[in-house]
């Protein structure tokens, strides 16, 4: 991370959820985020990749203080985010906003979409009356929505239009940083490309910093300048996007990339089919969390017993593997 001035820094973050198991509801911890450290520079896009249960969504929710982590630190522009409260927390929320996967689930179905975009302006006392009305119109135009749509309800819009409303709502308070949690996963391919283009334009014009969470590596490849791959609550690989996606070091990243279907029969690659399912975050395996499914030929007792460190394997590219 030589010349990247860190803007958003996460240090040793941990978040567990108590889960009831069995007939008598004995509570056991679910390790959603076990130990995550990362740094994002201003104006860049960090792509956060992982399968279900990897902890990427919990991490996203911690970043915007929708969840309170058990341990660790989040520092944004020099401010300790976890220590904030009251007015300082509200000010932080104006600077960092989140966009969810399914705007159908995150928008109030009985609120017209214009009012949904106006709401944050009023909550944060940024505008009211005619000024708020004009700001909403400007936001609609900025995200490529006809301002005439402001009187519609969410169910009257297409998936792509609803996601544009979700983005406009996040932009209403003038944030510098957006945490995008699977922003295009629910959309059809032809519409997905439209929303990705919009996100790129917004980033350029507003100088936004993005934390872009996705399970689709091909989408992340288009958006991210850096990529972090999560597995079972930990980052297993991290580095410049082109390096991680072209020359992955961790065996999980290698397998994940090989599993993505290629839309071209002429270049069908060899798929590495991992055995089994991702292990349960209720009972993470000892040692390297990936060892039960790892196809690496050198896998041995050390992998079963000792958690590998996230070490530099190539310039600026780190992987959590004893043998990568």
């Amino acid at each position, binding site marked *: 991370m030589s010349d990247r001035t860190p803007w958003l820094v996460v240090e040793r973050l941990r978040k567990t959820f108590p889960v009831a198991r069995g007939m008598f509801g004995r509570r056991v911890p679910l390790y959603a985020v076990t130990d995550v450290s990362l740094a994002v520079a201003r104006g860049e896009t960090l792509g956060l990749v992982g399968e279900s249960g990897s902890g990427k969504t919990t991490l996203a929710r911690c970043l915007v203080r929708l969840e309170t982590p058990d341990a660790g630190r989040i520092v944004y522009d020099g401010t300790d985010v976890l220590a904030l409260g009251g007015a300082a927390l509200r000010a932080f929320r104006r600077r960092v906003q989140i966009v969810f996967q399914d705007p159908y689930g995150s928008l109030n179905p009985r609120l017209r979409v214009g009012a949904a975009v106006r709401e944050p302006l009023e909550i944060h006392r940024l505008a009211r009356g005619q000024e708020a009305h004009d700001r909403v119109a400007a936001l609609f135009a900025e995200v490529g929505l006809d301002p005439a749509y402001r009187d519609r309800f969410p169910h009257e819009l297409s998936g792509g239009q609803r996601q544009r409303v979700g983005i406009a709502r996040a932009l209403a308070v003038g944030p510098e940083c957006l945490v995008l949690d699977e922003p295009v996963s629910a959309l*059809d391919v032809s519409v997905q490309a439209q929303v*990705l283009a919009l996100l790129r334009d917004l980033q350029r014009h507003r100088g936004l910093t993005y934390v872009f969470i996705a399970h689709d590596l091909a989408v992340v*490849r*288009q958006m991210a300048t850096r990529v972090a791959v999560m597995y079972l609550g930990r980052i297993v690989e991290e580095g410049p996007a082109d390096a991680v*996606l072209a020359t992955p070091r961790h065996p999980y990243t290698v397998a994940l990339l090989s599993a*993505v*279907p290629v839309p071209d*029969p002429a270049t069908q690659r060899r798929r590495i089919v991992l055995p089994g399912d991702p292990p349960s975050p209720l009972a993470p395996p000892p040692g390297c969390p990936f060892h039960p499914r790892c196809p690496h030929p050198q896998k041995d007792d050390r992998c079963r017993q000792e958690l590998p460190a996230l070490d530099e394997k190539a310039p600026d590219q780190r992987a959590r593997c004893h043998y990568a």
Partner: protein
Amino acid sequence: MTALLEVRDLRVTFRTADGPARAVDGVSFALAAGETLALVGESGSGKTVTALALLRLLAEPPADVDPASRVLFEGRDVLQLDGEALRRVRGAGMAMVFQEPMTSLNPVLSIGLQITETVQAHERVTRRGARDRAADMLALVGLPDPRAALGRYPHELSGGMRQRVLLAMALVCRPRVLIADEPTTALDVTVQAQILELLAELRERLGMAMLLITHNLGIAAGIADRIAVMYGGQLVETASRQTLFREPRHPYTLGLLRAAPRLDGPAAPTPAIPGAVPPATAWPTGCRFRPRCPHAWARCETAPPLLEAATAQQARCWLVEQPGGAPA
């Protein structure tokens, strides 16, 4: 090749508050024994309704299947069958797996009971015989310890394991055609790879034909012999998978191929198709892709039929007859 399954001019209309929705509007295709055809399209294209109509799984009303539509399975029209005859087609003839394994399984019945029930619904077998068949099938789809798995419940299994159970249930009567509707969409990519591998392997071992419904061109590229692209309730292009990816003739197919983000090739942003799929209650007049098409010209105000574009390739586009491109 004689067709095992032949669909002729399938039309399904739904009665909705906004008027009739012509969800499937004149779809015809044939599937030969052992062949895999992928039906590719985005949401609202009509691909799932097509699949459900083949097995008579649509509730009528609100669905209304045109009396002139034909679904010929081994020469008999499935749309005219009922009772015992329909049940026979559904078991050993055509079987279906759905996208969401959790909602397709009964949460309060054990896996074993659900599979043996399937066998007993379609064949005269003893309960013990049905149970043996269920265990064999679970072994075939790669469930560890199949005998023990018979006693387990859906919630005790992972998403990938549930999809394997559904496959076992669909295949236990040895159907000649498997209809798979987005069978890996709800799964993680590493688990998706397992299921795709399993589908290809089962297809070889059991010699069955497959109709794969998917929105993912990459999945179609990896497993299908032929691909049919749907848009607006119609087939807009059919071709072998090699031809479809190398020389697509319909602008929508080309648009989809270009829009799909991919891991090979340059990392540049992919171009979107402008606009959105129109609702089935209001298909555009003329060519249904016209409002989004970069090549639309005067002739597109008349709806094009599926035109022969090359050997074994058809496209619903007037450009097929205008190889130099649309007139300016």
